[in-house]
């Protein structure tokens, strides 16, 4: 029987592996972004799973780190999707 920390650590590492595999194997940009975000969720889970191990104070530093990480991930995804959209417009124009 796994403890809570072990269980979520396990889940985090599997998510990370899944995300990396998806990033390598998928060709479509949207799928790559989803894979990157799943990788990110895995890493965030790794950070948060240990924040409350010790009885008493919950460590807020990993929480703050994950909050920052979520915002950075959204920013990166938004930029990637924008570039892909611009690239598509340009490709269509070249085809015309």
């Amino acid at each position: 029987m796994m403890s809570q920390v072990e269980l979520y650590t396990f889940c985090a590492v599997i998510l990370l592996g899944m995300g990396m595999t998806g990033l390598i194997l998928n060709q479509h940009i949207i799928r790559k972004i989803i894979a990157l975000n799943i990788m990110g969720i895995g890493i965030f889970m790794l950070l948060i799973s240990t924040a409350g191990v010790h009885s008493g104070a919950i460590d807020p530093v990993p929480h703050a780190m994950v909050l920052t990480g979520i915002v950075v991930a959204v920013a990166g995804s938004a930029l990637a999707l924008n570039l892909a959209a611009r690239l598509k417009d340009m490709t269509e124009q070249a085809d015309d």
Partner: protein
Amino acid sequence: MPIDSLLDHLLVFGILLFAASALLVSKLFSAIVLFISLGLIVSLVWIRLGAVDVAIAEAAIGAGVTGVMLLAAWKRLR
């Protein structure tokens, strides 16, 4: 098995299931919807782990904003 532990196992199972199907499903639109749902389940996990701030941010930004942008991109790249 205590109820808390059961809940944890269910959540982990759900997360892995949704993540795998978001990566494997053949229709792109379904992949996006599955990813958004994954974000919502993950925010439940954050609440379970005592990170309510992160849970709100995950639901609003991680699932919400990313989801909206993915859908907008899906519509445009189609």
